[in-house]
């Protein structure tokens, strides 16, 4: 059965990976092993529903509600699930909190483990050899590339996601953000700040 999803295939026909992946999808569809529409739904989920805005809401709530922050520290999976963010690559969550003394940075040196349920799909750099190789030996050098310059006295803690725990960094709440609502606060929380390669934005951005 030739499938009818040509609307998905705008790649140059000469691109070998585009051709290879299309061939594979054709074969699996003809054999009835996959439902191409299921792939559409999976893609749509990560394009429109599951992304770093989820994590930003978790962080904003932790900044606003000390009881929630405490719950997030003790049982991140449950605290995050209470906001309806669950599922694939977020089954076993840990939240790690930045402090004036310690900055947390998350990496997966062995593959590309990433907390999908709160951050969505990882960016290319997170999955690529330069970041995966350097984050554990020279995190300060990595941070410079992201324009994050920490005081020399700030301790860096790198979390290598070698098992099935997925880490969400809770950045420090920016100064001058006291009067902001959770919704306004969430706009200060960037994806990179929840990986540890960024800091939360200053309130002027809200």
């Amino acid at each position: 059965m030739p499938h009818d999803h040509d609307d998905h295939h705008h790649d140059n026909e000469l691109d070998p990976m585009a051709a290879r992946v299309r061939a594979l999808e054709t074969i699996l569809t003809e054999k009835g092993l996959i439902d191409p529409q299921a792939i559409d739904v999976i893609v749509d989920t990560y394009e429109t529903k599951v992304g770093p805005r989820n994590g930003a809401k978790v962080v904003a709530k932790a900044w606003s509600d000390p009881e929630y922050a405490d719950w997030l520290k003790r049982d991140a999976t449950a605290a995050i699930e209470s906001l309806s963010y669950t599922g694939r690559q977020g089954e076993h969550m840990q939240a790690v909190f930045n402090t004036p003394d310690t900055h947390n940075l998350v990496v997966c040196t062995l593959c590309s483990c990433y907390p999908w349920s709160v951050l969505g799909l990882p960016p290319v750099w997170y999955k690529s050899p330069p970041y995966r190789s350097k984050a554990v030996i020279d995190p300060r050098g990595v941070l410079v590339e992201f324009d994050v310059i920490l005081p020399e006295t700030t301790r860096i803690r790198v979390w290598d996601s070698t098992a099935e725990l997925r880490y969400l960094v809770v950045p420090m709440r920016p100064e001058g953000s006291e009067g902001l609502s959770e919704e306004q606060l969430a706009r200060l929380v960037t994806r990179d700040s929840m990986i540890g390669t960024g800091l939360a934005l200053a309130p002027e951005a809200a």
Partner: protein
Amino acid sequence: MNGPQDLGGQMGFGPVAPEKNEPLFHADWEKRAMGMTIAAGAMGHWNIDESRHARESLHPADYYTSSYYEIWAKALEILLKRHGFVQPQELDEGRSLGKGTQPKRVLKAENVAAALAKGGPCDRPVAGEPRFQPSDRIRTHNFNPETHTRLPRYAHGKLGVIEAVRGGFVFPDSNAHGKGENPQYVYTVVFTAPEIWGDGADPILTVSIDAWESYLEPA
């Protein structure tokens, strides 16, 4: 295995070069490769550990010159061939030449939301008490199996401190090879940078891994 995936501390890959305003996908085929990997995995014939092992078993020259979705797509072909779903000739010709292994289940569009929301929890009960407790000093195992493991090379034979007991989890070293889940306790283990990297390392940098109990010995 000491494969191309074990990148911690390697050098020479150049800058991280994060892309400004990076799109979620860089080509439409990446969307299909991502979705197919999840949909084919949902047939239930292999687990996430076998998938990871298929990716890290690519030739290093192939691994390092492939984008991550290319790695996924290439590993998916390997898994489909290994489990009898497709034949090499079919991949060459780009069409089905007949039935192969019949799937245990097929992920339909209407079931995707529930499947993604459920995920694949891999925590498991473990008989007995954890061998280690927070603040215990340990030394990591030094071994070089040709099979799958999640103990990175930079953390071989190193002194560390248990920070947390995370509970029982499926053991990837056996699960990747069809040898059962054999769950063990997992611990967050912290190392100082000088312990891992030696001369010249940042004295206030710490690195942690999550380690299965059999990777650790008391120190």
